């Protein structure tokens, strides 16, 4: 299959390894990947913070950037949920019926990585090797808007060497919420405190999830506490194999060089 990668602005700027891991993984499974450099940001931050006319420009841009794609796959439940769930609302609120039809159509071809692997490709064993103790946080938008359900867990259970530790109160939000984390930073931190407590209670080396925004939040808290527990995106775990990049692995992270 020809897969168009939607890397997302956050991953492009701050977590490029995740994008490379997703590309490597999809190629390993026999698919052709394409990255169009025109892409930037889906507009979620603007829309959800209240800057909806600014977001609308980015919605239209996303449609232009991906209208010819067979499928669009992103390593972010939140950005995909925004495209699928809120793009139609954005178009509706703007009274743009043509855009509404376009985003509904594009939404059907846009997937979060784990649901693409399990639901679209029907793959649960991607041949990964990751000899670490891992806990998984189901991010809110992947769980409640995309309903990815157990797809990420199925993938993790089939990773060789990986010990999966169940997370307590998994359905509770980590407190990120985009600009919520700065506008209501104290409430956000109170939510994070409980999430961090649950992560640490698993004694896992790393916490994984399908979204680097939530992981940036959880990881930021774990790092501030010098807890020694790290975070790593699901794509990076799934991209890891025993042969090849094994010796380049740090304690938990895949190096960008290994994926090039």
């Amino acid at each position, binding site marked *: 299959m020809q897969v168009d990668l939607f890397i997302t602005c956050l991953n*492009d700027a701050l977590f490029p390894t995740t994008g490379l891991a997703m590309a490597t993984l999809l190629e390993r499974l026999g698919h052709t990947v394409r990255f169009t450099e025109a892409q930037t940001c889906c507009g979620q931050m603007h829309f959800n913070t209240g*800057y909806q006319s600014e977001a609308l420009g980015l919605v239209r841009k996303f449609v232009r950037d991906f209208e010819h794609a067979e499928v669009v796959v992103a390593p972010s439940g939140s950005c995909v949920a925004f495209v699928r769930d809120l793009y139609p609302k954005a178009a509706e609120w703007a009274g743009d019926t043509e855009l509404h039809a376009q985003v509904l159509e594009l939404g059907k071809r846009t997937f979060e990585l784990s649901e693409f692997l399990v639901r679209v490709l029907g793959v649960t064993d991607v041949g990964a090797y990751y000899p670490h103790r891992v806990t998984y946080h189901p991010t809110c938008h992947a769980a409640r808007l995309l309903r990815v359900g157990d797809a990420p867990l199925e993938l993790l259970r089939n990773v060789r060497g990986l010990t999966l530790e169940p997370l307590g109160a998994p359905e509770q939000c980590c407190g990120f919420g985009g600009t919520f984390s700065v506008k209501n930073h104290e409430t956000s931190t109170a939510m994070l405190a409980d999430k961090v407590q649950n992560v640490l209670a698993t004694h896992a080396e790393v916490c994984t999830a399908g979204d680097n925004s939530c992981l940036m939040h959880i990881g930021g808290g774990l790092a501030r506490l010098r807890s020694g527990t790290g975070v790593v995106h699901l794509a990076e775990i799934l991209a890891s194999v025993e042969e090849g990049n094994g010796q380049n692995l740090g304690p938990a992270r895949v190096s960008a060089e290994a994926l090039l």
Partner: protein
Amino acid sequence: MSAGGIRPPRPFPEAAHDALKDSQMRRNLRHATGTIRTKRLRAVAELPDWEALRTQAAATKDAAMRNLAEHLLTLETSVKRAGGQVHWARDAAEARTIVTDIAAAHAAREVIKVKSITSDEIELNSALEAAGIGVVETDLAELIVQLAGDAPSHILVPAIHKNRAEIRDLFRRRLGAELLTDEPAALAEAARVYLREKFLSATVAVSGANFAVAETGTVCVVESEGNGRMCLTLPDVLISIMGIEKVLPNWEDMAVFMRVLPRSSTAERMNPYTSFWTGVREGDGPREFHLVLLDNGRTDVLADEVGRQTLRCIRCSACLNVCPVYERTGGHAYGSVYPGPIGAILTPQLLKLEDDNANTLPWASSLCGACYDACPVKINIPEVLIHLRGKITDHKPLGVEGVAMKTAAWVFGEPHRFEGAIKLARLGQGPLVKQGAIHALPGLLAGWTDSRDLPAFPQQSFRELWRARKAGEEQ
């Protein structure tokens, strides 16, 4: 502390700052919401057609709202036909005057109340007290809040922020009860002894209304304790205050709510005390019945195509119990008798988006979506929150945040601008980065690094790495 109302005295982040430090409240709420969450899930899982019931409940409310004016006029006619009187109140002040005048006309020195958040919305108690009329709350939790001089912090369980030990101390102090233990049965008995005498001596009662049936003029109150039933049947005069959105055209429409409300609110299969009454009847119940129909901003909510779903709310409080923000800040931080996710959309809308403090409430959410999943009438609370954020932002003067957001949108508009911005950030972050991470940020972003590190921008962005990868493949 004010005894109610819907005008928050300060912005949400400020109120949350204090609330988050209250370790006793945090513990009480964690325990209470955690317990009810588990029970609700169990109660809902028993019904295989739960999703269909939610859809039906939402559609029923929407249909009723489409012809709201017509149903209200029918209700008025039916209530009058059954011997009741109907009063229309445009706002809280009008409603307060109507109720106070009726109580005064009967020379009431004290009124007893059925738990009613609508009466708290209009700050009825202080108006009655100012007119020299005493008020006795008969719902156990409302009584606790009243005796403590406190405000409700939950729609269904107004005293959820208090634990048994705190309540025992309060009853000892205010009721003179000789309580040796804080066992629930002992606490309930102390309240019962106090309230029984009130039920038998009061001549005027005030209630809210969960529903009203237009075709017959029947009003409904749903409660768990039976104290409401006492108020609705014993005194000579009954005054019920009802938000105009509570009307349903007919009895068929009532059925679905009797199924979804108890499971969503108290996690019960069936509600313990459901009272229906139609006007007045010789020799049974009150001799005089007044229905006060309250607008207080609801017509404006109805006029908003996205916001109007807020009026479907049946006050079950399931959204409060699942909300991670509510669980940590408690209800008082919202500064309104409508706290939690539903309060974050209802309060600012009732105030026509003109109250600066209430206008901070739509941002008091991480948009996690737990509230929408739990809502028995399918109010898409995250959608309304985002919609309100947009409306409020549109009417605000452009501040630092607005400039930053508009700049960011311009940057994201073209890939070369985005790439340039990443490179600029990589250079600019230099002084902030210590061993690969940022521990302190300035300005608007300082809130992040109060409790969290931030990874530094890496040496190469994805698009730079991707070009290198492509170049490698071609060689």
